[in-house]
């Protein structure tokens, strides 16, 4: 006979299993929890004698505090910087992967081996805790300089920023590393070793997990010498076939966008206000991103959202062109539009 049970009855066990299978980041049984076990026997006294039941003594095992921490550098890629930059930010998470309440000391280090240059930790503070005011998940002036995470409950995560200044005179694509270390205030020790009475509440032991009570991760800066140069030129055509800037004359402006050096100019947006005493000629924006010479213009609309360009939409009475990410290797971009002199 097969026994069939519905998930309804066993849901709690299934859920518990799923949590466990998440490994190190599972919420383990809380420090201080008592695990009680009691067995029971049923039997007959003598063959055919009266049936009886007897319980065992209960065993009680108290769960100790597991001290375990994870530090992870979470910038998506090396942080692009240029020589001489100040207060450049790298971003980390610190997670209490133990089962008790724990505070962690935070230290930063930038004199690491294996990179091209040493960033210089910002002074007087260079470790900041992301706080709920200002922009969450991004360094801003409301974030507080700290030397500890503060007490973290099991599975609590905080975001930490390390700020460095970048030395001058560096070359394109040079990298520099900086490191955040979080160390349990309770202490550190070999995985599996323990400190008596050092766990939560002072009556249970503190047992060191795989991290040994401290963890570090390294973030990287990369020098990107990307330089964006805009060159604007104007050609005047007057109503009389000449080139005098008189009322009624048309001015054709051309903006040449050059990205040079190395790396990528991210989210490059060109905005050009229409000069005073002139009027924009509707639907006159044209864009050449392919020829590198202004030989392959494509007409743009004035409305926003349909192509890379707009007039009086992103910025009032201005031409705005969103070029996105432009690499130093890309050909020069040409933007042209017309105005008339009032």
């Amino acid at each position, binding site marked *: 006979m097969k026994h069939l049970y519905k998930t309804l009855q066993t849901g709690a066990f299934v859920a518990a299993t799923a949590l466990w299978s998440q490994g190190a980041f599972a919420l383990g049984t809380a420090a201080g929890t008592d695990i009680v076990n009691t067995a029971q026997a049923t039997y007959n006294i003598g063959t055919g004698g009266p049936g009886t039941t007897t319980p065992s003594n209960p065993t009680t095992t108290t769960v100790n505090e597991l001290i375990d921490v994870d530090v992870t550098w979470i910038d998506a890629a090396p942080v692009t910087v240029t020589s001489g930059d100040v207060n450049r930010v790298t971003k980390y998470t610190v997670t209490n992967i133990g089962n008790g309440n724990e505070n962690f000391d935070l230290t930063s280090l930038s004199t690491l081996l294996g990179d091209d240059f040493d960033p210089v930790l910002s002074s007087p503070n260079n470790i900041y805790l992301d706080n709920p005011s200002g922009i969450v998940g991004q360094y801003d002036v409301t974030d507080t300089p700290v030397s500890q995470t503060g007490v973290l409950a099991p599975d609590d995560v905080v975001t930490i920023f390390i700020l460095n200044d970048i030395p001058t005179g560096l070359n394109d694509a040079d990298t520099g590393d900086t490191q955040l270390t979080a160390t349990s205030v309770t202490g550190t020790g070999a995985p599996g070793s*323990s400190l008596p009475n050092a766990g939560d509440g002072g009556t249970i032991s503190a047992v060191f997990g795989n991290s040994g009570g401290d963890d570090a991760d390294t973030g990287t800066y990369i020098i990107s010498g990307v330089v964006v140069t805009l060159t604007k030129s104007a050609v005047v055509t007057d109503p009389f076939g000449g080139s005098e800037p008189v009322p009624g004359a048309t001015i054709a402006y051309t903006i040449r966008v050059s990205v040079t050096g190395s790396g990528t100019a991210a989210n490059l947006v060109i905005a050009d206000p229409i000069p005073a005493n002139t009027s924009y000629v509707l639907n006159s924006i044209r864009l050449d991103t392919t020829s590198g010479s202004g030989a392959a213009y494509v007409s743009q609309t004035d409305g926003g959202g349909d192509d890379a360009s707009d007039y009086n939409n992103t910025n009032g009475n201005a031409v705005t062109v969103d070029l996105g990410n432009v690499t130093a290797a890309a050909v020069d971009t040409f933007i042209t539009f017309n105005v008339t002199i009032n």
Partner: protein
Amino acid sequence: MLKLLKNSLLALVVIASPVWAGSLTLSNIAEIEVTEVNDQGEEIVKRVPADLVVPGTEVIYTITANNEGDMEAANVVIANPVPEHTVYIGGSASSSAMGKSTRIVFSVDGGSTFDVPENLEIMDEDGTVRLASAEEYTHVQWAFDFAIPPGAKVDVSFRVLLK
């Protein structure tokens, strides 16, 4: 006088019942395994009381049935719920009297019914029927097909992982 008689009867009952129940006693210990290095530099796995447990620790429970009476204990069945905050480790249940035919079965319904692992199935919410995994067992049970003679002991054991 009647009251006195009642009291003495009550006293008799109280004295009498431990004599019956006391013929089989169950003792239960919780241990963990630790690895130590001996004088020869060899690693030795040693069992110690389960004091230093944290999430992820394997705990070994050993239950000893000791027949302290003068009659044999027949049809002995020992049942142990898997303790809260732990999961049963598949294949870990054992008996010191295995050679004498001990039937080890499990429950996935809180101890209402028991069966061998290959017969324990669970229906998921989407209707899929699958074999229950060891982590889903709620109880372990040992049924002895022999009587425990007076003065004899049988150990049974199982392991759990602390969540």
